[in-house]
């Protein structure tokens, strides 16, 4: 933060972002109590390190970087955060190329039914939360930053201090794992059944084929 940014401006920025910070912390830490502690600690660290923000316009990614680091480095010891998965982004992840759409989509029903949209209609917020919470830590962080908080890949690379290529590959695999978890949960809950024909997930058509 520039030296000229006083406590009042800092407070205004933090207050404006508090819901977002807590939302991200909640999905990272998985429970409200820990999430609130992570946010409070991150806000304290942000104030202490306010001179490290050179461009006040970049306050949001800057404080999310502090929030994410606070979670990843300071709070791993609590039971909500398994440590075994920390480095798994370098390994092949089962489900990493899974596509929910390909499981559900039924091309032959295209004109009178839409099972994938019906599936999404049945998916509740708690189903999505459960699937995000089940992600390994390294994957959860990119999904939270990209899909929940809407940061660009470049911003995420800065927040997590990894190359942008790592963000791309980690996010792609994380989404596959997330979709697989949603699918497995949906099957268990009886929301859907697997389709039998999996070979027609994509058909190119010409403009003339469209009605």
């Amino acid at each position, binding site marked *: 933060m520039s030296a000229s940014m006083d406590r009042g401006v800092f407070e205004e920025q933090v207050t404006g972002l*508090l819901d977002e910070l807590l939302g*991200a912390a909640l999905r990272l830490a998985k429970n409200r109590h820990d999430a*609130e502690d992570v946010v409070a600690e991150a806000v304290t660290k942000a104030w202490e390190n306010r001179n490290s923000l050179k461009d006040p316009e970049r306050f949001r990614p800057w404080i999310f970087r502090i929030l994410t680091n606070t979670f990843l480095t300071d709070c791993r010891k609590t039971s909500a955060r398994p440590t075994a998965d920390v480095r798994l982004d370098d390994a092949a992840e089962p489900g990493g190329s899974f596509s929910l759409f390909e499981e559900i989509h039924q091309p032959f029903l295209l004109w009178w039914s839409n099972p994938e949209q019906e599936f*999404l209609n049945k998916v509740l917020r708690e189903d999505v939360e459960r699937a995000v919470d089940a992600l390994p830590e390294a994957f959860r962080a990119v999904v939270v930053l990209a899909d929940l*908080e809407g940061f660009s890949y470049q911003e995420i690379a800065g927040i997590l201090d990894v190359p942008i290529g790592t963000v791309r590959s980690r996010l792609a695999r994380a989404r596959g794992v997330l979709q697989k978890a949603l699918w497995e949960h949906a099957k268990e809950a009886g929301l859907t059944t697997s389709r039998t024909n999996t070979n027609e997930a994509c058909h190119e058509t010409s*403009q003339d084929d469209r009605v």
Partner: protein
Amino acid sequence: MKPVKTIGCEEALTHLLEYLDRELGAVKHREVERHLDICRSCFSRGEFEQRLKAKLREAGRETAGESFGERIKLLLRGF
């Protein structure tokens, strides 16, 4: 402007999520967009992924609440 290259389903799907994230370069973005204009199945998949993204976004929405807001306010006042 140069004509947009026609790409197939495989290439379009490879780039679909980055397309929806608006993370592709302008040329590749137009190629995927063009493919989605002519391929019903990939278009459906794009719609599906977009709605799923919206569901995820929704899962990130949280309200700090009065009690936590007060805690942070007190913390800030102490700086």
